[in-house]
C-alpha cells in the first residue's frame, strides 16, 4: 500500500514542519503576479553566531530543490544539508566566524509559503491554486527575514544556480544591503535552453495521472522530472568517468527495459529518492519562477542598470564544464557590472563535474569563496 505509506510519511513531515524556525511576515507583499499576500510564513535556519556589530551575517540562497537546511543533518529529511561542502565550522563559509542565514524560498516545500501549505481562506492545501511567484518575490520575502533579525547590512549574499539569480536580484533591489555578493553558476536571464528543460520537467509532472488527484502525489512524473534535470547538472565527461557503459549488477545485457546500465539505475535512484523529500507542485512553481527571471528586462533591456547603484563588491564564479549556466552567461553579468563601474572580480573554475560543481568538493572553488569572504571581512574590520 504505497499510497497509505506516503500519506503517513506526509503526516510525520507535517508535524515535524511545525518545529522548524518560521517567521510569519505580518506585512503585506505584492507579488509580481499582482496578488497581495499577508501573514505568510518564511521558514529559515541559521548557523553560527551573529556578532555584536551584526556585521558577520551571510545570506545563502538555495537552488531549485534546496531548502533552509544548508548544512548539518536536515531534521525533516534526515539527510545531509545541500551545501555541507561549503558551510560549517572551518569550512569555506566558516560558521565559527560568520552567521549564516538560509531561508526556504516562498513557493518551496519546507515550511515557507508554498503550494504545500494550507490556504487559510479555504482550509485546503494551496496546490495549483497557489499564485505564480517570481525570483523577485522570493528575494523580497527573505528581506523581511533579514530585517526581522535586525541586520542592517549583510557581509555577503551568496548562492549558486537559482541561488545565484537571487543574489543578483537582491543586489538589484537593495544596492546597499550587502558588502559583497557572490553569484555562482547562474544567469541574469533564463535561457531558452533552460526554459525548455524546465518545461520538460513540468510536463512530466503534469502527465502523471496522480497530479490532479486529491491525496495523491505525481511521484512518477516528479521522478522523471528529477532524472531529466539531474542529467543537466552533470557533464558528459563526469558521466563517462563515473558510469561509462558499465552494467548494473549483471554480466551481460538482459534484452529488456530494466536498468541494465549503471547510469539508468543511478538516475532511477535519484528520481525515486527525490519524491520523498520534494513536492511536485513546488517543483512547478519554482521552475516557473526561474523561467520568468529576466533581470535585463526588469531594467529596460540594460542589465548594467540593475547594478547602477550597487555598493557591493562582486565575485562572479562559473565552472568550465557547466553547460546549463555556461561561463558565457556568467560573463554577461561581469560585463554588466563592469559597464556601470561596479567592483567585480570573476573566475572560471576548472572542474569536469558540470553545473553541480558548486555543491561538490571542488577545492579551487571552495578556496576562492573562503578567501574572498575572508578578504571582505578583513576590509570591513579595518
Amino acid at each position: 500500500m504505497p499510497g497509505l505509506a506516503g500519506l503517513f510519511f506526509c503526516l510525520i513531515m507535517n508535524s515535524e514542519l511545525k518545529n522548524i524556525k518560521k517567521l510569519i511576515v505580518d506585512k503585506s507583499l505584492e507579488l509580481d503576479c499582482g496578488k497581495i499576500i499577508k501573514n505568510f510564513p518564511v521558514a529559515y535556519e541559521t548557523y553560527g553566531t551573529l556578532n555584536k556589530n551584526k556585521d558577520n551575517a551571510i545570506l545563502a540562497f538555495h537552488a531549485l530543490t534546496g531548502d533552509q537546511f544548508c548544512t548539518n543533518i536536515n531534521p525533516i529529511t534526515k539527510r545531509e544539508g545541500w551545501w555541507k561542502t561549503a558551510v560549517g565550522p572551518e569550512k569555506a563559509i566558516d560558521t565559527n566566524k560568520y552567521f549564516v542565514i538560509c531561508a526556504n524560498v516562498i513557493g518551496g516545500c519546507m515550511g515557507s509559503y508554498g503550494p504545500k501549505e494550507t490556504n487559510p481562506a479555504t482550509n485546503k492545501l494551496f496546490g495549483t491554486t497557489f499564485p505564480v511567484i517570481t525570483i523577485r518575490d522570493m528575494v523580497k520575502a527573505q528581506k523581511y527575514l533579514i530585517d526581522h533579525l535586525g541586520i542592517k547590512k549583510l557581509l555577503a549574499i551568496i548562492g549558486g544556480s537559482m541561488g545565484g539569480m537571487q543574489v543578483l536580484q537582491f543586489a538589484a533591489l537593495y544596492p546597499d544591503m550587502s558588502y559583497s555578493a557572490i553569484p555562482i553558476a547562474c544567469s541574469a536571464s533564463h535561457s531558452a535552453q533552460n526554459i525548455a528543460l524546465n518545461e520538460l520537467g513540468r510536463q512530466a509532472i503534469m502527465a502523471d495521472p496522480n497530479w490532479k488527484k486529491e491525496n495523491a502525489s505525481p511521484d512518477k512524473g516528479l521522478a522523471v522530472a528529477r532524472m531529466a534535470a539531474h542529467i543537466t547538472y552533470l557533464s558528459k565527461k563526469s558521466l563517462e568517468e563515473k558510469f561509462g557503459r558499465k552494467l548494473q549488477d549483471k554480466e551481460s545485457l538482459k534484452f529488456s527495459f530494466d536498468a541494465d546500465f549503471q547510469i539508468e539505475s543511478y538516475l532511477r535512484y535519484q528520481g525515486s529518492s527525490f519524491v520523498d523529500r520534494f513536492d511536485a507542485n513546488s517543483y512547478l512553481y519554482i521552475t516557473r519562477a526561474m523561467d520568468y527571471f529576466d533581470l535585463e528586462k526588469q531594467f529596460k533591456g540594460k542589465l548594467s542598470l540593475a547594478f547602477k547603484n550597487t555598493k557591493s563588491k562582486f565575485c562572479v564564479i562559473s565552472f568550465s564544464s557547466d553547460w546549463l549556466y555556461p561561463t558565457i552567461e556568467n560573463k554577461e553579468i561581469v560585463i554588466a557590472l563592469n559597464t556601470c563601474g561596479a567592483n567585480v572580480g570573476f573566475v572560471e573554475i576548472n572542474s569536469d563535474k558540470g553545473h553541480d560543481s558548486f555543491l561538490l568538493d571542488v577545492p579551487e572553488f571552495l578556496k576562492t569563496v573562503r578567501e574572498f569572504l575572508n578578504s571582505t571581512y578583513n576590509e570591513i574590520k579595518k
Partner: protein
Amino acid sequence: MKKEFEVISQIIKNNKRVLDVGCGDGTLMEYLKNNQQNDVRGLEPQKEFVQKCISKGLSVIEGDAEKELSQFQEKSFDYVVLSQTLQAFFNPEEVLNHLLRIGKQTIVSIPNFGYWKVRLHLLFKGTMPITKNLPNEWYNTPNLHMCTIKDFVNFCNKKNIKIDKSMCLTNEKISEITSKNMGSKNIFSQLGIFLIE
C-alpha cells in the same frame, strides 16, 4: 616589488582609479591599493593568478585583453597599466587603442629589443636573442611583436598619441628619455616605460 612597478606607482597619483591589464599575481595592484589608496581593478588571463588576486581581496576578472577590453567604458579609469605585455598580443595596435579609450592616461612598459645585448646576440650568434628580459626560445616565446624604445616612440608620433612621460630602466636605474638621448637609451636600456594619452 620590482623596480618597474616602483616607477609605475610613482607615476600614479593617490586616490585614483586604476585598471591593471595583465595584472599577474596582483603585486602592483596590492601596492597601489594599500599605499596610495587607489581604486584598482585587474584583468588577467591566467586562472591561478586570478584566484591569487581574489584571495588577496583584489577585484580581478579572468579574461583575455584582446577580447575583454571592449566592455570597459570610455575614460572610466584615471590610469590603465599594461606592463610588458603589448608585444604578446596578436593585435597590439587595437589593444593600445582600447587602453587609450578606457584610461584618461595609459602607462605602457615594453622590453626594449634595441638593447645592446639583444643586438649583439643576433649580430654575432646569428640566432634569436635570449636575455634576462627575453628568456624564451623563438619557438615558445609569447612575444609576437617585439619593438624597440625608438619604435614605440615613432609609433606614438605616427598615431598622434601624446607622450606625457617617457622613462627607461638601465640596469635597474631609472632615467628620462629625451629626444637628445634617445639613441643611447635605445641601446643601453632594457625597458621603456611610457605615460601616454
